[in-house]
């Protein structure tokens, strides 16, 4: 059968891909897409640890569900912020949003 | 075990025997048989779908005091085949600037979202695709894919009408998923499982008698989810010239159209499964699986007929009214109903069945009455605000 390592490596790869998206994409929405990938990678880890650990302890699945909730919250707020920024500054390019500098 | 008691199993065993006899690996043979089973189910469904077109046309004609198609074949039975031939030989156009891949994938996804639903529909006690223990949730999940297909179709057509239509439809579907999910929880509460077969098996009393309000809300949400009148805002011929699928022609349009009809039929089936005992009717389902299939198809057809009945009776409403109706009325009522039902279930668990039924019915009636009263007082205030108090006073005199 499938060893745990496969899942972990898949999750690590997905996480890195998401990280690249977060670090490199110009568009703020695309950055959020990357964040979603990272969250999913984490969830794969949680669920596979559940499956490969003591199966009667549901912590892994429970936390995956909480990650769902957090992801939904993050997307809602994140996209609302993007839209709000777009309204004010007419751009969603992350590089242009450098008010942190001042 | 004989064919008349468990036809699927017998057929599958027979086929597997043949394939392994050819020297095929056992696992591969199983996969192949399963694949063939799916193919068969889909084929049957598509054939039913063809006749759904005919039924729809006939029924609408009766509603409108006409006869309907009657030229081709007896009662016009050949008419749908002619329609299909027409759709197939029509020019298949792709609009300029369309996103080709997405444009072509969308109708497939739309059809798929309907067909995938049948994976969990139990046709008879022994005949069903998979007995998922989360079947009720699966309906919503499949609906999500349908949502996706609509927005893909609308966006890729490169047409502002289609985008607006898609936006509307998606807003409607995403919104009405919520009361639908809430009402799906009510059979779950009664039966203690989300599995379709378990829900049917526990319906010694049809759930409509336990929770008529839930059945009603489920029906409304289902109609909205289908995008049929009175909730057909995405099409809205007069304003959007048929909405998200405006640019599609030929068989691609046919897939949307057939998908919609089959979807309606499927939801008629789900309505029957959730609230009308599915394939059960006076113990007849135990006689033969084929009788069970006939019962559930008949019930699904009745559900389909009710949906059509609503469609050709009620007029279309505005998008804002519709969303307001969902968020301000249907969703709260559905949630309250779920809470009340769960509470009553916890209170009455173990009580006599007549007490259980009476309690459930009473709680349903009370919830319905209270919510109608609230709506009435709110809408009266709203009307007074809009029209001004004086006019009301005049109207009274």
């Amino acid at each position: 059968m499938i060893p745990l390592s496969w899942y972990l490596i898949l999750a690590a790869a997905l996480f890195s891909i998401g990280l690249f998206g977060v670090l490199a994409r110009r568009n703020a929405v695309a950055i959020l897409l990357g964040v979603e990938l990272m969250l999913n990678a984490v969830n794969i880890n949680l669920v596979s640890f559940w499956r490969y650990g003591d199966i009667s302890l549901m912590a892994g699945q429970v936390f995956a569900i909480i990650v769902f909730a957090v992801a939904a919250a993050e997307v809602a707020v994140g996209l609302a912020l993007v839209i709000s920024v777009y309204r004010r500054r007419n751009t969603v390019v992350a590089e242009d949003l450098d008010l942190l500098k001042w | 075990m004989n064919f008349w008691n468990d036809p699927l199993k017998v057929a599958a065993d027979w086929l597997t025997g043949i394939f392994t006899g050819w020297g095929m690996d056992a696992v591969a043979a199983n996969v192949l048989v399963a694949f063939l089973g799916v193919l068969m189910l889909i084929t049957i469904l598509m054939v039913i779908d063809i006749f759904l077109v005919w039924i729809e046309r006939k029924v609408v004609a009766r509603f409108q005091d006409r006869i309907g198609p009657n030229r081709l074949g007896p009662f016009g039975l050949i008419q749908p085949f002619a329609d299909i031939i027409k759709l197939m030989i029509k020019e298949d156009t792709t609009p300029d600037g369309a996103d080709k891949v997405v444009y072509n994938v969308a109708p497939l996804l739309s059809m798929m979202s309907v067909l995938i639903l049948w994976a969990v529909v139990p046709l008879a006690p022994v005949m069903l695709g998979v007995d998922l223990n989360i079947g009720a949730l699966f309906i919503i999940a499949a609906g999500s894919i349908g949502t996706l297909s609509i927005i893909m179709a609308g966006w890729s057509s490169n047409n502002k009408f289609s985008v607006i239509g898609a936006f509307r439809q998606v807003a409607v579907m995403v919104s009405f998923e919520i009361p639908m999910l809430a009402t799906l929880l009510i059979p779950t509460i009664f039966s203690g499982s989300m599995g379709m077969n378990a829900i049917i098996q526990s319906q010694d009393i049809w759930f409509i008698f336990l929770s008529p309000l839930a059945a009603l809300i489920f029906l409304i949400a289902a109609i909205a989810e289908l995008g049929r009148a009175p909730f057909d805002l995405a099409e809205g011929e007069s304003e959007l010239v048929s909405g998200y699928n405006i640019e599609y022609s030929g068989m691609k349009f046919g897939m949307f159209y057939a998908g919609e009809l089959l979807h309606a039929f499927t939801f008629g089936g789900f309505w029957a499964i959730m609230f009308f005992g599915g394939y059960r009717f006076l113990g007849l389902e135990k006689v033969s699986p084929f009788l069970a299939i006939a019962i559930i198809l008949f019930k699904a057809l009745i559900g389909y007929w009710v949906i059509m009945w609503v469609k050709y009776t009620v007029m279309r409403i505005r998008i804002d009214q519709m969303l307001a109706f969902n968020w301000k009325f249907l969703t709260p009522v559905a949630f309250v109903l779920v809470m009340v039902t769960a509470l009553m279930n916890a209170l009455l668990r173990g009580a006599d069945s007549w007490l259980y039924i009476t309690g459930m019915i009473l709680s349903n009636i009370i919830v319905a009455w209270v919510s109608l009263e609230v709506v009435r007082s709110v809408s009266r205030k709203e009307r007074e605000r809009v029209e001004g108090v004086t006019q009301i006073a005049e109207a009274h005199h």
Partner: protein
Amino acid sequence: MATELLIWLIPLPPVLAFFLIVLFTNKNKALSHSVAIGAAFLSWLGSMVVFARALGVEHLGEHPFESSINWLPTGDTWLNIGVLIDPLSAAVLFFVAWTVLMIFIYSVGYHNYGQPAGDHDHKGLPPHGATVTDELGHKHTVLSVEPMYSRFFAFIGLFAFGMYTLVVSDNLLTLFVGWEIMGLCSYLLIGFWYGKPSARNAAVKAFMTTRIGDVFMLLGIAFLYKATGTLTYREIFTEESLHVLSNTITPVFGLSAAGLIAILLFIGTIGKSAQFPLHVWLPDAMEGPTPVSAMIHAATMVSAGVYAVIRMFPLLSAGWHEGGPLTSAMTVVAVVGAFTAIFAATIAVAQNDIKRVLAYSTISQLGFMIAAIGMGAYIAAVFHLITHAFFKALLFLGSGSVIHGMEHGVLHTGNHKVDPQDMFNMGGLRKKMPVTFWTFLIGGFALSGFPLITAGFWSKDEILADAFANGHLVIFITLAVAAFMTAFYTMRQITLTFLGEPRTKEAEHAHETPWTMTAPLVILSVFAIGYGWVGIPEHFPLLGGLVPNWFHEFVGGTLAEHPPVLEFNWIPLLTSLVVALGGLALGWYVYKDIKSPAEDKFQIPVLKNKYYFDEAYDYLFIKPLTWFSEVFVSKWMDKGVIDSILHIFGPATGGLGTFIREKFDVPVVNQFFGDGSANLTYSIGRNLRPIQTGRIQQYLILSLVVIFVVGGLVYFFLLA
């Protein structure tokens, strides 16, 4: 319903009422007060049932009603919360339920329910009255309804929730939660008329002052949790853990752990119960809606502070045995209490505002209880806590009724310069407001300890008897003097307010208040008299033994060792008779002759006498002290001896300073280290500045790279 479940439910109705009113019914005044009073009634009903069932249990102290649930996981254990009704909390619950219900009912009348909305009333200001035209076309000014009527009921609902939570709690954590909820509510209610700057300031002052105490209390709770690993009373007060606590010596003043925790918790009480030196907020708290918020600061919330100390008595007295020398923690408590008692009583004598007299009186009476608990007079403290709650609630509600009647007069004459709270504007109100007068008289006599018939006599007498019997003579004398002053200022208040002839037109036109206000007065006055009879000492001459000393038996059962019954002694009894009757007589005698309106209180001979006291203090303490400080310390020691020594130091250090500055400071420190480091920082900053691009993704990359580098280094050099 099971008693334990019922106890859980007691605090809930008021908080539900709070949310109901805030969220739904705030538009509708009648609905709001019905919801609030209904909730208070439900809680009252629950409390009475629980109390009745508690009475029926033999040895309730050893087998109290208790129930608890796991609340917060703390590592591998749980923090429990739960409810506990032992004799102490049952007795407290009884008076809390009654007084809370009475306030709720009283508030309806006090906020002028049923009156028209005011002409110029604004939210956040007291109502100013409304003009109505009667059938004959005459215009009258009448009282107007409070603009934030519903808000008030929501707040007191939340308040009642806090108080009930505190009382039924079985652990310090939920006690503290209720404590803080009440702190918040007192802030909200004192600042209820937030349009008045004085009310705003008073609210902030009350909040900040009590917060000082609360911080120490939280420290005490944290210390206790660390020391014992639990916050539940019944687990802390076991013999083993008390033994451990009292034998652990902390580095603070050599106190035992038990003593230090008790003192830290006691500081919380100092804040909440307005003890010296944190008493300053309570008189200002009278800015709240007159009697009700004041009543909160007399009958329930400040009592909570005393309740907490009484609860902690096993901790406070760890290592002490009946009749033995007091522990240092107990000494602190007793001294603070006794001092506060006399100190506040002296101030109360000189107040003219009817509510402020009562406010200082409250501080003083709480001092009595604190002193009692400090001396180990456990039962006496509880007894006085309860009787005081009843008669002080009565007095405050009565004073609110008086003020209300006076406001009626003020509206009638239209002269808004007359302060309806100044006692010198009153007089002769007994004829105008008979119910208020008689109930106020009962409350006042109870406060003064009028012998035999009032509840205050029995409880105060017991404190004095305890102090005398255990040989704490200094405290005994202090408290006796304070009791004398209490009787005196109480009679002064009654005389000025009710007796004699009206001193102003407004007082002539004062009017009895509606039944919603007088009915609670009547009910409370029953308790102000009758509650004393449940605790008559067994050896009391004539009366002793007629009625069994139920209170001693019942409440004493809370402690592991039942406190012994005191031998009767004539000296404290005579003392309390003399101080009560003497104070009352003196108060009446001195103030009965004041007939003219006293615009200037200094024209009255008696107040001049009061002034002599001040001069006496002046001669005895201040003048010598001034002389000592101005002539001896300042002129001789400071300017003569010390300055001349310093004048030698001055030039010498000046020279040294100049030398160091020129040779060391300027060249080495300023130029080398100072400018050098500044230049270094500047150049580092200039070189690093481009990194700050404001682009979040670059920051992210940078921080990740740093994490990798550091993580890699740590891994290879420390772990691998």
